[in-house]
Each structure stands twice: as C-alpha cells, then as structure tokens.
C-alpha cells in the first residue's frame, strides 16, 4: 500500500499530488528532472527486482555511475567495483550478465550498485522479498553494517515485520487510512489493536521473545 510510491517520491521519481517532499533540505516536488540530479547524487536506491541493466555485465552495471559522474579510469573503476562486490560477499562475478545471477546475487549486485558512490541516503524497496532466510540475514547484516560504519541513512520498506523490528530506529506503519509512526519499542508496548494486528504473527512472536530476553532492538535504520 504505497510503500514503493513513497520511496519513489523520496527519490523524485514520482511527484506527490499534494504536500511536500523534503530530502536533505531540498524540496523535490517542483524540481525538474535535471534539478533533481544533484539531489540524487547523494541517494542510492535498491529497487525491488534490482533494476540492473540486463544488456550490461555486472562490472558495467556497478561501474556506470562511476563512469558517468567521476573521472576515475577504467582500472580504478574495476578496483572499486571489486571492492564493493566483496563487501557484499561476491567475488569474480564482474563479467556475468544479470540473467546469469541467482535472485540473492542479483539483489546483492544491485545493492553494490546503490552504494558504489557512497551515498548519504540509501532507499531500499522490499530488500527481503522473495529471498531465502540465509540471504535475508545477509542483507540485513549489510544494511546494519552500512548504517553503523558509514553512517548512512537507510530507508527500508518491508513486509518482513521481524527484520524491520530487529533493524529499525524508527518505523512507520502505512495503513489504508493514514499511518502510525514510532520506534519499535513503542510498537512493542502499544496496545493499539490496529498496530498489533499489523505486526502480525511474526512480529508479535518476535516481540514476545524480545521481552523474554529483556533486550532492546539493536541499532538499525532510521528515517
């Protein structure tokens, strides 16, 4: 319900019918495509299905933003791409085409492309959908690591309540009519029926376990 639309608005890909979108001090809703470019330079976006250019190799895909916006030589780009790839746990995939990659690898390559220029904000659209639990954990760890080590602002949309509660500093529940914002702790403590319903089986189970362990959620993403 509007999660992807919300992210696309933050990236300036869509305009709101009414209201304002302010990202890092720039209000986006009236900017032309060209005026949005400087803002987007500071934003990395991970699309749900990767959105990798399917006629280009992994190296070319990840290297494109570097080729377009920096003066790095081909060799420097190659090195940087290899470094980013190994940080997402992939090696020697540079010459493969996206269609040769598995779902989890594809997601991680897209991830590498989103962070290769070290943006300030990372937008992730459903980064966990359609992945096996192993890959979910792996991506979760990557996101947390980026947030912790590089101080990136990470905005994640997800259906995956458990991982959201695990990672988030701030959560917004989008519902049919309006939304509820708060910290995972607040949600855990909430007795609002709609919120508990929204958290679902998964979330409630996680929160219950959390309470048992008497352990607050680790640092995760913040909005």
């Amino acid at each position, binding site marked *: 319900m509007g999660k992807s639309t919300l992210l696309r608005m933050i990236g300036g890909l869509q305009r709101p019918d009414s209201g304002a979108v302010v990202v890092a001090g720039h209000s986006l809703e009236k900017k032309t495509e060209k005026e949005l470019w400087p803002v*987007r330079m500071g934003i990395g976006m991970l699309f749900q299905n990767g959105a990798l250019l399917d006629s280009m190799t992994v190296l070319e895909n990840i290297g494109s933003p570097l080729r377009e916006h920096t003066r790095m030589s081909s060799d420097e780009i190659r090195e940087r791409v290899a470094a980013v790839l190994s940080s997402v746990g992939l090696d020697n995939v540079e010459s493969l085409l996206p269609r040769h990659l598995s779902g989890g690898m594809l997601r991680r390559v897209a991830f590498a492309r989103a962070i290769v220029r070290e943006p300030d904000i990372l937008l992730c659209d459903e980064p966990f959908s359609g992945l096996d639990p192993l890959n979910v954990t792996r991506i979760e760890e990557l996101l947390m690591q980026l947030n912790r080590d590089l101080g990136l602002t990470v905005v994640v949309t997800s259906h995956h309540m458990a991982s959201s509660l695990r990672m988030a500093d701030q959560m917004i529940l989008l519902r049919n009519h309006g939304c509820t914002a708060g910290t995972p702790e607040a949600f855990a403590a909430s007795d609002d029926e709609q919120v508990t319903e929204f958290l679902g089986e998964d979330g409630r189970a996680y929160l219950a376990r959390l309470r048992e362990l008497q352990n607050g959620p680790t640092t995760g993403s913040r909005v």
Partner: protein
Amino acid sequence: MTGAIRDLGTRSTSLVEGLGRISNFGGALVASMLKPPSRFGFFVRALYDAGVLSVALVCLSGFTVGMVLGLQLYTTLARFGAEEGLGAVVGLSLIRELGPVLTGLLVTGRAGSAMTAEIGAMKATEQLDGLRMMAIDPIHFVAMPRAIALAISMPLLNALFITLSFAGAYAVGVSLQGLDGGVYLSGLENAVRFGEDVGQSLLKSCIFGILLGLIATYKGHTCAPDSAGVARATTSTVVTASVCILMADYMITALWGV
C-alpha cells in the same frame, strides 16, 4: 450525440497532447546528441541491432521485389515492344519510391518494433528509473544511440535494397527473359539522375530513419510499465511509424517535385 462530440474533442486534444509530448521528447533527444554517447560500444551495439540484423531481410526483400518488377514490367513493356525501357522504369520506381518506402516499412517491422520492445521492457523492469536514480539521463543513455543508429542504418539499408532489387530485375529481365544486359544497364543509368533521383531517395530514407528512431524510442520510453503495455507500445510503433513513413513519402515527393 453530445457524448460523441465530446469524445471527438477528447480525442483531438489527446492527439495534440501526444504530438506535444513526442516533440518534447524529440527536443530532448536532439539536445542529448550534443553530448557524445557514454560509450561508443552502445552505439555499435545499436547499429548491430538496427542495421546488421536487418541486412538479410532487406536484401532478400529487395531481390524479390526486383524480380517481381522485372517480370511484370518486362511482360507489359514487351507488348508494346518497349522492353528496352525496363531499366529506366525499374530504376526510377525503385530509387524514388519503392526503395525508401519498402525499406522503411521493413526496418520498422524488424528493428523499430524490437527497439520499442527492448526499451519498454527496460522501463517495465525499472531499469530506466534505476538510471534516473543514478542521475543518468535515460534519453541520453538508452534512446540516443539507438535513434542515431536507426537514422544511419536506414539510408545504408535503402541503398542495399535498391542495389539488390536492380540485381533481381536483371536476373529476371536479362537472364530469364533474354533482354540484353547492356540495354538494361544503360537504360537504368541514363534514366536515373543523381540530384533528383538518388538525392531524393537518400533524403527520404534519412527522414524515415529519423522518424522511426524518434517514434520507436518515444514509444518505448512512454509505454505502460507492464507486459501488456510493452505489447501495445510495440504495435503502436509499427502502426505509427508505417503511417508516418507513408505520409512523409507523399509530402517529400510533392515538395521535391516529381
């Protein structure tokens, strides 16, 4: 009744709107040509898709059209004892009209539709949005090399088509029907003039190439991001480009003078 009139109004405004949008797109496309393509390889690949892959079709069609013309015209001309006119008639009709128009229609079906489908699929899988999020202009990155490749391929394919059709008419008229080869070729060479005929042919095919490049990339960029949308856009490219090519052909012929 009022409904029908209102419908007519809506259709006309949406037609005008569409014209405005494609003009804007064309403007952006031309503006993006000021900057060279990000990689020369893109351009080579686009030229391969638009040009090389159409060569076989264009050559085969050209040869066949030449054979048909040779057969039909030879038998008709022979009734008046004017077989020597074969070269002239074949040459003029192919160079001025049939060559550019048939090549335009063939390339529309072969390369234009594929181009729209490819760009449309890129849009449907958010690849174009991915480029925008990397602050890369999809028009410059995706559409521009492809549109230029079409505009360059078209006159070359047109020349191939015409040359092969001359050979086709030669094969039928000279080899099968027994017209003298020298008479055929000299008739051809005497009738065709560079400025008026070859020039007009080149101008036409260049304009058709530019039109097709614009329409194919525009339809791809503006298609609805799902498989039905890609299918509609592809059909729309073939229909729109074919009609535009035929109308442009008439206009150029009328303006240039017969």
